[in-house]
């Protein structure tokens, strides 16, 4: 068995959105998530790369970073791995710097910083095809000679240049080439000398040249936290070295950019040949004139989102019918096979198939939604949307960098919260994390579709139904904006938003493979979730709604209806058949969950919920989509699902209040439907999200977020119900 220390490690580094993850996938054969915008990778990913010489290598895909002066968490992860400071991970044996061929100068800035860590290096000039199309020619041989490291052109997403890269890496592992380093002016050399003498010679610190450079040039360098030297002493040493540099005529904060570009510019002379074609405005720039327009850009964005949600609503109908048909067929089959064992029959038919089936029926909508998300990501529109949103975000103290995490939260809040690692300002990051659960994740989609299908579409038609679905996806964002403003005023003391800098990727034709993979992944997540957590929760909820089963319930129901059951079994069977619906309802009411629901119902009474909806709402706190299966089981066990009810939507229409002042009135109406949807749009009903917030911030913030959002959801649900019920 190989020891970890024997395994060679190669790290992929580069600026954001240069195609590192695409190259990682091409080299390892893995299917790491890629996107046509920066910040997709927020942590290191590892895979095995077979070099063909019998040696498998551990390939590490790192988050993109513009420089080694890491500010955000994702950048710091990249720098820690590169410097060998990641816990339990030695420094990589070789670094492949992935360089966007169109931005050679800026991308080589990072490479020149990495060179000071004395790590052997190979440069992959990625997006070579785009450069060729734009008439950009690069003399790779000359660049290789000048930099002193192998330079290989690649097109990672088409697997071009992979073999050449493999050959170059095999050679570099033997020759260990290191990129040429800048020759610093005397003032920098002296300042670095001061640091070397104080930290290495006097204090015995183990620091590489690159780390000394970081201490000198970075404001509040992260390197200080790794030193054995007490922090105040270390800060005093760094301050004195930076002061020496300032006296030498260089601003320590600006000197590095100035000197490195002064070093890189001559190296790139005659390397790049730009042909006349580049002088024309590119197609991307032309499209941006419209899509980034301060007014028309927003109109296009809103229009695009509207089309997406209309399509999600209208296209899925036939597929839903198909799934409902299959679920019904399975229920019939299981009911017949388990006729002699009524408890098991109820568990399988009402609980498992009914509960999971009610959830799975929304798979087509999920797939259609992710088709559009994949299309928007692949084309490069997402980064534009971030820029458009920047202006809107500015007033509440956030900036466009919060947009990508918030947008990811529309699929699922968990990767969205993880994506906040790209935000360097800790307070802005915290605010973004706290409002991320308000973005309408895909788990809310089934709830909206169920209620809109039952109460909006029959009244107002599919166009209004689609518009309602569209509007529901912005309810959370509408609450998030003032909440972010308040948090910024308190946590951030009203500090204005930091400037937003993001590189716009080129528009490109979406690749069918990537889109298919994204849809497959989201579909798989949904089905796996249905088959694991939802499946298990469905069984528990069924048990809580089914048990206990006291033997005297049928007798009491019969007595209430003026019928006496004798001891003869034929009479008992006949009465039970006659009052089966009432008996089912009585069993449900006295079940554990039924009793709990009736106890908690007064809390939700102002929002118009009966005890069954209350049960659904309470059961959904671990995972919000559980309400679908809970309501499915509740109405099935309560005997309210019959041959007339094609699905849960039909069942809702016939549900009535069983007692109290509203006895006999329909439970569900437009006001209740809107109230439930608003509650689910705002409430923190996701155990996993609470756990992630606790991991990324702490448990106090996670609990504050849980109680805060749940409180806001309750107030909003009550307000919506009370207002709507007075209007309709």
């Amino acid at each position, binding site marked *: 068995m190989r020891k970890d220390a024997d395994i060679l490690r190669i790290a992929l580094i580069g600026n954001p959105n240069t195609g590192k993850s695409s190259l990682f996938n091409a080299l390892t054969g893995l299917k790491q*998530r890629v996107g046509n915008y920066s910040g997709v990778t927020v*942590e*290191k990913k590892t895979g095995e790369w077979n070099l063909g010489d019998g040696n498998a290598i551990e390939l590490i895909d790192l988050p993109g970073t513009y420089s080694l002066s890491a500010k955000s*968490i994702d950048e*710091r*992860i990249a720098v*820690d*791995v590169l410097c060998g400071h*990641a*816990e*339990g*991970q030695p420094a990589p044996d070789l670094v492949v710097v992935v360089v966007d061929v169109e931005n050679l100068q800026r991308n080589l800035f990072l490479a020149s910083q990495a060179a000071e860590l004395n790590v052997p290096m190979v440069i992959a000039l990625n997006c070579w095809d785009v450069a060729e199309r734009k008439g950009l020619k690069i003399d790779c041989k000359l660049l290789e000679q000048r930099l002193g490291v192998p330079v290989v052109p690649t097109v990672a997403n088409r697997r071009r240049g992979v073999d050449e890269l493999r050959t170059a890496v095999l050679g570099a592992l033997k020759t260990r080439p290191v990129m040429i380093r800048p020759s610093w002016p005397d003032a920098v050399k002296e300042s670095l000398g001061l640091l070397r003498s104080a930290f290495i010679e006097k204090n015995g610190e183990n620091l590489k040249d690159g780390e000394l450079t970081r201490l000198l040039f970075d404001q509040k360098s*992260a390197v200080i*936290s*790794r030193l054995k030297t007490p922090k105040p002493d270390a800060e005093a040493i760094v301050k004195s070295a930076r002061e020496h540099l300032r006296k030498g005529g260089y601003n320590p904060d600006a000197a590095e950019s100035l000197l490195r570009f002064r070093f890189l510019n001559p190296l790139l002379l005659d390397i790049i040949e730009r042909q006349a074609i580049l002088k024309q405005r590119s197609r991307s720039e032309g499209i941006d004139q419209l899509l980034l327009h301060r007014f028309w850009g927003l109109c296009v964005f809103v229009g695009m989102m509207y089309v997406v949600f209309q399509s999600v609503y209208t296209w899925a109908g036939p597929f839903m019918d198909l799934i409902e048909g299959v679920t019904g067929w399975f229920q019939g089959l299981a009911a017949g096979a388990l006729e*002699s*064992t009524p*408890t*098991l029959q109820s*568990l399988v038919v009402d609980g498992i198939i009914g509960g999971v089936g009610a959830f799975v029926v929304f798979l087509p909508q999920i797939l259609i939604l992710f088709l559009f998300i994949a299309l928007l990501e692949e084309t490069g529109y997402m980064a534009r949307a971030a820029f458009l949103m920047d202006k809107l975000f500015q007033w509440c103290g956030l900036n466009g960098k919060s947009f990508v995490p918030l947008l990811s939260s529309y699929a*699922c809040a*968990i*990767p969205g919260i*993880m994506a906040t690692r790209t935000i360097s300002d800790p307070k802005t990051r915290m605010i973004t994390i706290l409002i991320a659960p308000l973005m309408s994740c895909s788990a809310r989609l089934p709830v909206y579709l169920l209620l809109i299908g039952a109460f909006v579409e029959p009244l107002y038609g599919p166009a209004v139904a689609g518009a309602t679905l569209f509007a529901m996806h912005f309810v959370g964002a509408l609450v998030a904006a003032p909440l972010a403003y308040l948090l910024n005023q308190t946590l951030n003391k009203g500090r204005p938003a930091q400037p937003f800098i993001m590189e716009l990727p080129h528009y490109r034709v979406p690749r069918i493979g990537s889109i298919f993979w994204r849809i497959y*992944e989201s579909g*798989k*997540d949904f089905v*796996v*979730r249905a088959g*694991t*957590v939802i*499946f*298990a*929760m469905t*069984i*528990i909820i069924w*048990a809580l709604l089914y048990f206990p089963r006291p033997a005297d319930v049928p007798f009491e129901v019969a007595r209430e209806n003026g019928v006496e059951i004798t001891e003869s079994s034929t009479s008992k069977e006949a009465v039970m058949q006659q009052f089966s619906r009432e008996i089912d309802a009585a069993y449900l009411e006295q079940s554990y969950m039924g009793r709990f629901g009736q106890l908690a119902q007064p809390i939700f009474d102002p929002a118009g919920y009966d005890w069954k909806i209350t049960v659904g709402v309470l059961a959904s706190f*671990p*995972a919000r989509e559980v309400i679908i299966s809970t309501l499915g089981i509740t109405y099935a066990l309560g005997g309210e699902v019959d041959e007339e009810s094609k699905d849960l939507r039909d069942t809702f229409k016939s549900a009535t209040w069983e007692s109290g002042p509203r006895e006999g009135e329909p439970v569900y109406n437009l006001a209740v439907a809107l109230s439930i949807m608003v509650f689910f749009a705002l409430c923190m009903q*996701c*155990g*996993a999200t609470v*756990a*992630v917030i606790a*991991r*990324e911030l702490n448990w106090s913030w996670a609990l504050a977020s849980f109680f805060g959002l749940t409180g806001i959801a309750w107030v909003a649900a009550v307000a919506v119900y009370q207002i709507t019920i007075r209007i309709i």
Partner: protein
Amino acid sequence: MIILEYLLVGLIVGLALVYLAKAFWPKSKKTGCGCSNAHCKVPKPDLKIRA
């Protein structure tokens, strides 16, 4: 027969409980939070992030 049926139902419910307990309160640091999301990043990667 009824006892057998109740035993079977009890077993299924028990297994579901054990599954949920294991899923939401994982023992290993590498098992995730139990949300069954392929992109689930809970708990965080094995890197220690300095404050």
